[in-house]
Structures are given as structure tokens and as C-alpha cells.
């Protein structure tokens, strides 16, 4: 326990200053405007679909980070709360359609959220009594149980084909029928902004601050008179609520929910997304969700092997940058404050660009190996980086190998200079 008493700037709790309930309006306004303008920049239908998916993942990842980043609870079955919220919304949607009730669609995610919270209250009542391994194992067990139930309890989960509905039922909402993708986009954006603001505010309430305290040192928090268990329980319920909202948005956007939305793979993906973005900062999961959705949609169009690259990226993040992408960005704040960030630009270019080229060379080798082994017999032609060549001749292998070796070699050679520049940029005062 002694290591937790020392001050460590890499620990999020000690970095984040306790603030008031007020919001710094700047970033939020920028985010809101960006959300409004995005459809005018990326007008195609597929771009809208990708953005919808992205924002839903953002809500989900933020909700997940309420547990992982802010509460220190690692959940391996969190897709359950999103999935259940979604399933409930779907049933509600069908129910309203059958009985012709007057119910505006934009309110639907709220009910998904309430259902998610209700379920989180049931599970949280026994799972939150401990953090760490015990909590992780219960979440895994519950996740597997619900995923298995989705095939058995056909009445609620619809078996293997899932349940589907139609969002354009009944009464239009102020003339909007949600027929078009763009209308759904704005609905999702609205809920994204609302939930993000609420989640941020939650992290600023006393409960949110206590969640940080309980994460870092539960014993000490209990000596101060707070029940660690109840603090965890509140975080868990709040997280369940926002997961349910994400589920409701998913139901509206895709109009179908299946077992896939509940299973262990989805739970794993959200852990990956959140950690990739960075658990130490509120905006980390947002970056993670955007980066991951882009990787998933863009990379999976280019190569069959995208999961290998994402997995390798994930492992590299855990090993070298446990702060994630957000942590990587925030590492540069001290240098910026000291006004020395400009000294970093050249070393970065010298090291990172050859490094990136080298990595691309390695990727090319991997792709060629894969093609060599698994392509249909006689199919020797492959296209990589806009060039078509024969994967069974020596030349491409040689070129890719040389590119990889040279790129990584240069990066390795210039790395000490970058380290030096980094140290220099983070040292206050004149030349040291």
C-alpha cells in the first residue's frame, strides 16, 4: 500500500485538480459546433453511418470509463448493459407501434437508460462490494450468463436472429419522421452532447470525486467516513444508465439487436476502445472511440488482417503508453507551457516519419506472407499501396524488407536525439 501514498504525476487522480461544478464552456461549444457541421463536410451516406456508429461508441466508451478510469473497476461484461438497454428500447418501439401510442422517438434512449440502470442496480447490489479481481470476475460471469440467456430466452432476446423494429412508427416529432439518416444523425448527436455533459458533471459531483478516492485508496476513503461499496454502486448505476442510452441509440440507428450486442466480444471491444483512448482523462474514450471506429471501418476495407494490427497497436499502447492516446497528447502540455514545444518538431519528424515508413514496410511483409500462404492457387497477383505485383517473385519482398529495415533503422538511430530533445523541452529555464 505504501506506493500509493507517494505523489506520482502519471496517476490521473493526482493530475486532475478538484474542480467546481462549473463547466469550461470552450471545448463543449467547439464540440457542439463540430457535431453540427460534420454532416456538411462528409455528406455521403456511408460517412453518416460511420459517424453514427462513432458517436454511439463514444457514449458507450465514456460510460465504460466512468467505471474503469474514474472508479478503477475493470468490467469484462459491460456490453450487457448497453445490449439490454437496446433490447428494451426495441421492445418499446414495437409495443408503441402495435398499440399506436403517442410517444416521441427522441425520448426512447432515456427509457433504455433507465432499464440499463435498473439492471445495473440488481447486479451492482452484489458485484460492487469489492473492486479488482472479484468485480472483474463477477462482471465476466454475468456477461457470459446474459449472453447465453439470449439464445435460451427467446421471448425477450429473439433467439439467434435477434429482434428488429421500425423507428418511423407513429407520430412524427415536430414534423420529423426519422426516415432519413441525417435526422437520425442529429438525434444521436443531441444525445451524445447531453450524455457527455452529464457524465462530465457527474465526475465533478462529490460522488464522482469520491469514486476517484475509492479507486486510489479505498481504505483511506472509508476512514474518512465514506462507504467504498456505496460509492462504487453509484458509479456503477450511473455507468449502466449511460450504457443503456447508448443501447437505445443503437436500436434507433440500426433497428435490429442480436446476441452480438451482448456477448463477450463486444465487451472486449469497448475495453480496447477505452484503453486505447486513455482512461486517465475524460476525453480519452472520445478519442479512442473515434480512432477505433475509423480504424475498424477504413482498415477493414483495405485488409483482412486489420484485427492483427489493432491487436498489436493495443498491446503496444498497454506496454509503452499506458495513458493511451489522450495521455500521449497531454504529455506535451508541460512542454507547451514552457514554450519549448517548437524544439520538438524537428526531432519528431526525423524519428517518427522513418519509423512510420518502417512499420508500413513490416505491414507490407505481413500482407505478402498472408497472400503467399492463403491466396487461391495460381492467384499470384496482389495489390498493396496502389501497386500491383506478383507476390511469388523475390523483388517485392526485397523492396518491402529494405524499406522496413531502413525505416526502422533510421528511427532507431535518431531516437536518442529525440529523447534528448524531449528532456530539454521538459526542463524549465535556459540551456541545461
Amino acid at each position, binding site marked *: 500500500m505504501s506506493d500509493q501514498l507517494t505523489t506520482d504525476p502519471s496517476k490521473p487522480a493526482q493530475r486532475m485538480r478538484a474542480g467546481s461544478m462549473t463547466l469550461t464552456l470552450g471545448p463543449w461549444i467547439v464540440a457542439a459546433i463540430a457535431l453540427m457541421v460534420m454532416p456538411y463536410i462528409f455528406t455521403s451516406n456511408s460517412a453518416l453511418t460511420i459517424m453514427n456508429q462513432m458517436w454511439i461508441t463514444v457514449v458507450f466508451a465514456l460510460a465504460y470509463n466512468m467505471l474503469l478510469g474514474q472508479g478503477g473497476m*475493470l468490467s469484462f461484461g459491460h456490453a450487457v448493459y448497453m445490449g439490454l438497454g437496446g433490447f428494451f428500447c426495441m421492445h418499446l418501439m414495437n409495443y408503441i407501434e402495435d398499440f399506436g401510442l403517442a410517444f416521441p422517438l427522441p425520448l426512447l434512449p432515456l427509457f433504455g437508460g433507465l432499464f440499463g440502470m435498473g439492471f445495473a442496480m440488481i447486479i451492482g447490489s452484489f458485484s460492487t462490494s469489492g473492486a479488482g479481481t472479484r468485480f472483474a470476475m463477477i462482471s465476466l460471469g454475468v456477461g*457470459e450468463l446474459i449472453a447465453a440467456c439470449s439464445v435460451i430466452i427467446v421471448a425477450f432476446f429473439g433467439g439467434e436472429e435477434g429482434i428488429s423494429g421500425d423507428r418511423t412508427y407513429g407520430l412524427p416529432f415536430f414534423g420529423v419522421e426519422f426516415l432519413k439518416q441525417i435526422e437520425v444523425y442529429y438525434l444521436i448527436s443531441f444525445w451524445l452532447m447531453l450524455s457527455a455533459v452529464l457524465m462530465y458533471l457527474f465526475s465533478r459531483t462529490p460522488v464522482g470525486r469520491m469514486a476517484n478516492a475509492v479507486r486510489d485508496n479505498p481504505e483511506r476513503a472509508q476512514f474518512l467516513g465514506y462507504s467504498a461499496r456505496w460509492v462504487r454502486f453509484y458509479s456503477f448505476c450511473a455507468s449502466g444508465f449511460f450504457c443503456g442510452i447508448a443501447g437505445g441509440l443503437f436500436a434507433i440507428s440500426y433497428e435490429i439487436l442480436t446476441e452480438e450486442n451482448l456477448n463477450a466480444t463486444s465487451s472486449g471491444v469497448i475495453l480496447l476502445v477505452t484503453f486505447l483512448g486513455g482512461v486517465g482523462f475524460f476525453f480519452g474514450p472520445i478519442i479512442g472511440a473515434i480512432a477505433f471506429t475509423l480504424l475498424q471501418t477504413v482498415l477493414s476495407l483495405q485488409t483482412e488482417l486489420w484485427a492483427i494490427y489493432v*491487436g498489436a497497436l493495443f*498491446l503496444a499502447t498497454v*506496454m509503452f503508453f499506458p495513458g493511451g492516446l489522450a495521455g500521449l497528447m497531454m504529455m506535451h502540455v508541460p512542454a507547451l507551457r514552457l514554450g519549448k514545444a517548437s524544439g520538438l518538431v524537428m526531432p519528431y519528424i526525423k524519428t517518427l516519419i522513418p519509423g512510420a515508413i518502417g512499420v508500413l514496410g513490416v505491414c507490407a511483409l505481413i500482407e505478402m506472407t498472408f497472400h503467399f500462404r492463403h491466396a487461391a492457387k495460381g492467384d499470384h497477383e496482389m495489390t498493396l499501396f496502389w501497386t500491383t505485383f506478383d507476390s511469388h517473385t523475390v523483388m517485392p519482398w526485397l523492396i518491402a524488407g529494405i524499406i522496413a529495415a531502413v525505416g526502422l533503422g533510421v528511427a532507431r538511430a535518431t531516437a536518442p536525439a529525440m529523447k534528448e530533445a524531449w528532456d530539454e523541452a521538459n526542463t524549465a529555464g535556459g540551456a541545461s
Partner: protein
Amino acid sequence: MELILVNVIDGLVTGLLLFMLSAGLTLIFSMMGVLNFAHASFYMLGAYFAYQISLALGFWVGLLIAPLIVGVMGAGVERYGLRRVHQYGHVPELIFTFGLALLIEELVQFVWGKNQMAYDIPDILNFTAFSIAGNSIPAYKIFMIFISVGIFMGLLYVLTKTRVGMIIQAALSYPRTVEALGHNVPLIFMGVFGVGTALAGVAGVIAGPVLGTFPGMAFVLGSIVFVTIVIGGLGSLWGALVASLLIGWITTFAKSYNIAMSDILNGIGIATPENLSDNMFRDLWTVTSPQIADILPYILMVLILIFRPAGLFGKRES
């Protein structure tokens, strides 16, 4: 009666197989305090390596060499991966092994493709050992039982009777003191990690021909192994054994006896509703035990965690 005996043997095979995985996992847990999510991935690697070796040199060489390779890989993961992540705390360690599990599965698909490998029982063991009331028991099952029991005995002997075992046990509980006495504790940890993963490799080698060698095999068994050591009590070798056998028998018996939920409910005096298809709980009424056999361990684990958080044989609160 005969059927019960057959099921007992089947459950024993499943249980002992689980035990080979959970023994290594529980050793690693008591050492590092971290559940190794990639443990089942090493089991899968064992099966694939053994398959590849058996193509060239035969099954028996594979049984010897594949676990060695897996053990060396495991030790490498500990040395160059986990030890590095260790400084960041437990949660990143857990996430690291999780990411490793994903990556290994992708790599296996990359190298061997998505199809099941033709990894078969060696001819010399491909006969019927004996039969019980018409149910034949393959010799390979008996072989599996013997291998697992042998490994358990060996492990128990090494851990409790030899000097190395004493040092390991001491290092598990008081690493600093053992280090002060002049032992290289990081090396011990690396060794235990290697042996644990090698055990998983052995399990993979002998289970591959029976359960199938395919990229999903780690996923199928992975979470059940955690369930096993959580039920048994984290860090307890005996607990792992008891829980493995328990889970093996529960799932085997649930699968072979078709007990319907409606029979149980009728038995305790609740009558079946008349129009079942309209009833809200119709799925509850039609559930049968083979259907829920695979989720029984999870139910058991959640119950154990609620009522006895330390597990059956666990000593300390995790």
C-alpha cells in the same frame, strides 16, 4: 447405473483437462496477483505446435517438444511484456494479458487459417480400452487421465518435497525476504510463468485431437478456466483440482440427463400454464438441462462470489 459410470469417466476427463489449465493459472495468480487472460491461448498454441510437429515427427515428439516451446514463449512474455507492464499496476497487467489473448488468436488465424486442423489421435491409442454396458471407453481417454494425474502428482511432489518447490512457495508469500536471502526472485517468477504456460501447452497437446484444433478453442475454454479457479479459491491448488472436477462432472451430467424445467416446477407443485405459447415465462418452462449445461459453471461462480467470496478453498480476500 452403467450410464453413471460412463459419465463419471467422461466428467473426470473434462475435469482433469480443466485442471491442467487451472493449475498453471492459479500458480501464476498466486505469484503475480494477476489473472492471465492469455492462459487458454497458450493451450491453443500447444495444440497447434503439436499438430505442426506431429506432421513431421509424429505425435509423441510433439507431446514432448510443443509444451517446451510454449513454456519458453510464456517465459518470454513474462520477461519482456508483463514485467514491463507490472510497474503500471494490476489493471494494465490484466488488460495486457487480455490484449495478448486477442493477438494470439489473430496470429493463429494468420498462420494456420480459420479451419479446423486434421490433428488426430495417434494410431497406437486409437482403440477401445474397455466397454461398460455397451458404451465403449476409448483408450485415449484413459491416456488423458493418466497424463493429467501424473502431472498433478509431479507438480505436488516438486512443490512440497523439493528444495526448488520450497523456494517457490516461499517466494510466493514473502518475495522480499526470499530475495534478501539471496535468491533471484524475478527468475523464479519467470520460471513459474514458463512452467504454468507449459502445463497449458500439455493440455493443448492432448486435448487438441479430442476437442478439435481450431482458432476458437482458446475462447471456448478460456473463461471456463477462470471460473474454475475463482470457484476453487484464487491461488489454491487443491481448490483448482476440486473445482475442475466439480465443473467437469456437473456439465457432463447436465448434458447426458435430460431434465426439463417443467418437470422440476411440476414436482414442487406449480402446474404448467395451459396456453404456454402466450405465456411470458414460456422459455423458462421449456428450458432443459443440456441447454444450460454450459452456463452452469457461471451460475455457480456468481453464487460462490456472492456467498463465499474467497472461493471454496481460498484463504484470503482477493
